[in-house]
């Protein structure tokens, strides 16, 4: 068996690979995880002497099979997912033949690259400690095998690796601040690899209430100046036109060009940090004038869509106007689009609409009458509405009378359309909870909302929120408080606990800081930081010079640290003189290991440098007496030794390398 002299730090290595694999446990194909687990167990048993080394033929077969497995699963070796899985199974295969320290170094490196891949994949604050722990373990593995001075004790290895990480910190911070940022992330991944969360582009009864039990953050918003009141904070998202009697969908085809709103109030500016959704919708306060920060376009119905799906946290700036007016009339195609209803569905509602419309004098008065009807009909707002049948609006109005915002928006829009009033369902979020620690509004999935917009000739599109008449508190307070009363177990238990809210706010604020200041540290954030550091007019050359200067300073720091002896003491004059002698020997081609004693060193030096044998012998014995004997260290003794050193150097110039 090919055993190295130094023992292999099996346990640290296995821990490092296992932690690297764990980072991908929810993304890698299950069979890859199985392979990794099997390899870990195999190597552990092997290291205990329970298994014999794997035969070469077996290793070749396993490697080929794993390659084939990756090819079959991904149909490519390219891309982050396939690359990570490939790395994972190859690391596992390496465990089958890991015997020497060199093999251990390979496994540790694979673990490090697994951490890097995880960093490219996801950058949430919650995962940062995992990445740190995993990277630290991999470095500890390398520390456990490297250098003559290191020992294989786990504590020491982790200590050495931690020290190295701390030493690297200044350089990392320097590079973070000064290395020029690319516009757009180099590592942005194709959207097909991501899941989709948040508001969808269709709405059926209950789809929003499913979302409402999620306390995940949808986005965070910071207003320039005063924030609008909660009842005005309608964050506009997908607009739905197609209704089949049960489900509302976005208009698939091209919409007719329509009138765009004209602002009649002061602009409202805000900054949004949108969590990844895997979709293209960008949210802004109704109605949105423009959004900057990501390539986007505006649809005919006033939605703002990003050019590419939002697969990682996105920061953008929005401008909105709380009050707008529309000039001109609705186009024929637009009117047709927003007044059509599925034939033969929700007939009782349609009859109700015709009856009410007949009593009204105008579309505007009709819309108010329907709201009054909703108010008087005794509808109940609930997160857990009963299931509705295919004629969902009829079922809601005449039968169950219990529903969530989506139900009422759907019913209201249907009643409007049935009377020939153009109406569309708008989904988005309402409200947002103020985070006093972070100084922003956190909008959660539980605040998802649906409302309607109707076209009134002469006024244009008007926002009507039927939920506001059924459950005014939903609009006045936002979703979370309502949730608490509707009896979610966790909320009823902790709903009023101040400390819990503080804790949540702090964590959320930390998350926001992490996303805004670290992960989204882009070119403009970098320039902003440099400006605040007083480097307003710095160019690339200046940054490069600063970086180089900082790197030199860092190198000096490393040098100073490495100059300290193994016990953290700097050598005294005698030690420095001896070290100079060792350096002289090195320059004469005589390498000295840290564990060699003075006698052994002197004997080798005399044998290799006979020209200075006498001086070397007496220099070494002086050193022995001063360092290990009873002789007192004195200036003159050191001076004499230095003179001897110079004589040795002169006598051996011929041996110089």
């Amino acid at each position, binding site marked *: 068996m090919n055993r190295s002299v130094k023992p292999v730090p099996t346990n640290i290595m296995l821990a490092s690979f296992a932690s690297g694999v764990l980072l991908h446990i929810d993304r890698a194909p299950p069979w890859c995880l199985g392979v990794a687990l099997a390899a870990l167990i195999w190597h552990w048993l092997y290291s205990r*002497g329970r298994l014999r080394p794997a035969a070469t033929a077996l290793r070749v077969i396993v490697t080929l099979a794993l390659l084939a497995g990756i090819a079959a699963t991904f149909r490519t070796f390219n891309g982050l997912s396939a690359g990570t899985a490939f790395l994972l199974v190859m690391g596992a295969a390496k465990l089958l033949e890991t015997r020497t320290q060199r093999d251990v170094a390979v496994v540790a490196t694979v673990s490090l690259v697994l951490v890097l891949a995880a960093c490219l994949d996801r950058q949430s604050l919650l995962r940062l400690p995992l990445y740190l722990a995993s990277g630290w373990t991999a470095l500890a593995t390398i520390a456990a095998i490297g250098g003559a001075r290191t020992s294989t004790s786990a504590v020491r290895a982790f200590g050495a690796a931690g020290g190295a990480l701390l030493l690297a910190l200044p350089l990392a911070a320097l590079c973070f601040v000064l290395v020029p940022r690319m516009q757009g992330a180099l590592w942005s991944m194709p959207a097909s690899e991501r899941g989709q969360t948040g508001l969808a582009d269709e709405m059926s009864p209950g789809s929003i209430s499913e979302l409402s039990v999620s306390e995940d953050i949808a986005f965070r918003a910071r207003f320039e100046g005063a924030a609008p009141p909660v009842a005005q904070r309608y964050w506009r998202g997908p607009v739905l036109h197609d209704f089949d009697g049960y489900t509302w969908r976005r208009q698939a085809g091209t919409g007719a060009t329509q009138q765009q709103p004209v602002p009649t109030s002061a602009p409202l500016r805000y900054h949004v940090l949108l969590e990844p959704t895997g979709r293209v919708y960008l949210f802004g306060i109704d109605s949105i004038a423009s959004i900057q920060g990501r390539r986007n376009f505006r649809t005919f119905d006033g939605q703002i869509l990003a050019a590419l799906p939002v697969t990682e946290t996105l920061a953008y700036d929005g401008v909105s106007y709380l009050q707008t007016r529309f000039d001109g009339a609705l186009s024929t195609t637009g009117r047709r689009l927003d007044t059509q209803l599925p034939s033969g569905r929700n007939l009782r509602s349609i009859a109700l609409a015709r009856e009410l419309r007949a009593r009204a004098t105008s579309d505007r008065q009709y819309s108010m009458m329907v709201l009054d009807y909703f108010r008087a009909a005794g509808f109940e707002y609930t997160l857990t509405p009963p299931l509705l049948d295919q004629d969902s609006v009829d079922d809601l109005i005449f039968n169950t009378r219990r529903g969530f915002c989506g139900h009422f928006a759907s019913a209201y829009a249907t009643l409007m359309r049935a009377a020939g009033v153009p109406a569309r369902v708008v989904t988005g979020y309402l409200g947002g909870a103020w985070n006093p620690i972070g100084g922003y509004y956190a909008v959660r999935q539980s605040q998802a909302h649906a409302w309607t917009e109707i076209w009134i000739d002469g006024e244009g599109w008007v926002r009507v929120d039927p939920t506001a008449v059924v459950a005014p508190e939903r609009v006045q307070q936002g979703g979370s408080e309502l949730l608490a009363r509707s009896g979610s177990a966790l909320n009823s238990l902790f709903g009023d606990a101040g400390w819990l809210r503080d804790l949540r706010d702090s964590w959320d604020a930390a998350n926001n800081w992490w996303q805004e200041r670290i992960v989204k540290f882009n070119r403009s954030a970098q320039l902003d930081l440099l400006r605040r550091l007083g480097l307003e007019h710095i160019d690339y050359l200046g940054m490069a010079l600063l970086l180089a200067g900082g790197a030199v300073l860092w190198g000096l720091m490393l040098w100073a640290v490495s100059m300290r002896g193994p016990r953290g003491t700097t050598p005294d004059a005698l030690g420095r003189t001896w070290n100079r002698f060792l350096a002289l020997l090195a320059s004469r081609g005589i390498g000295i290991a840290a564990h060699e004693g003075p006698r052994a060193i002197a004997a080798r030096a005399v044998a290799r440098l006979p020209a200075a044998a006498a001086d070397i012998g007496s220099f070494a014995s002086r050193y022995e007496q001063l*360092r290990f*004997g009873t002789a007192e260290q004195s200036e003159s003794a050191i001076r004499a030794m230095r003179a001897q050193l110079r004589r040795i150097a002169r006598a051996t110039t011929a041996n110089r390398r």
Partner: protein
Amino acid sequence: MSALPAALAALDSIILGKSRALRLALSCLIARGHLLIEDVPGVGKTTLAHALAQVLGLSWQRVQFTSDLLPADILGVSVFDRATQKFEFRQGPVFTQLLLADEVNRASPRTQSALLEAMEEHQVSVDGVSHTLPDPFFVVATQNPHEQLGTYALPESQLDRFLMRIELGYPDPRHERVLLAEGDRRGLLARTAAAMTAAQLQQLQQEVTRVHVAPPLLDYVQQLVGSTRTRSDIRLGLSPRAAQGLVHAARAWALLEGRSAVLPDDVQAVWPAVALHRLEPRNAADRTHAQRERLVRAILEAVAVPR
């Protein structure tokens, strides 16, 4: 001082080509330590013990350890004397200056521990009466590492009582040729005169304690010993007693080298003999002699000498 080189020369002339092992053995004895010789039969273990006794001018006894050997066979027994109507203590072979315990691992643990107690206490207790052993008192024990059947391996706690463990190994061809040509060494042994008196030996032992040990050297010893306690591949590191022994053995070695202060080189010279039998590798596979040798060398190479 001249007694030491003379003793070494005499030993060298009897055991050919084993200068390093002989130096270790001699430094072990002048450091007042007991010696364990581990090797296959027929390489001169008994001859070495005999030679040591002869050269140092010591009385010596040899006990062949067997599985039926009883503590009384070593320590002695109280016998009832009809004439005096009293119990009279008959001293066992342990009452000598140098006891050769041949194949110590063949005896039962009870007998082993009786011997080891005598080694530690320098006295034996029989029937409640303590009998002091002669001074100096050394035990040179031998064991055959390759024979496992019917032996009782010495436990770590007892191995720790031996300051050094050495092996002799086969002679090289040149020296083996001389051996073959000259015949029996026993005759030569009988003709060898003692190189020193008992008083001189005691004076040497005193001198060992006066060899200077500088603080940086103690740092080095502490680091060496400490590293055996933190390494993941060692189950049992070195004890403080082993650390003391290491310093003392290094002092004796320095004295043998003619120096009045201990150098790291001296520590390194005695390190394998002091450390190897005391270290317990974690993995059973590493408990072979070759692996232990690599281990003690690796520990030496992993600890930097103070500069």
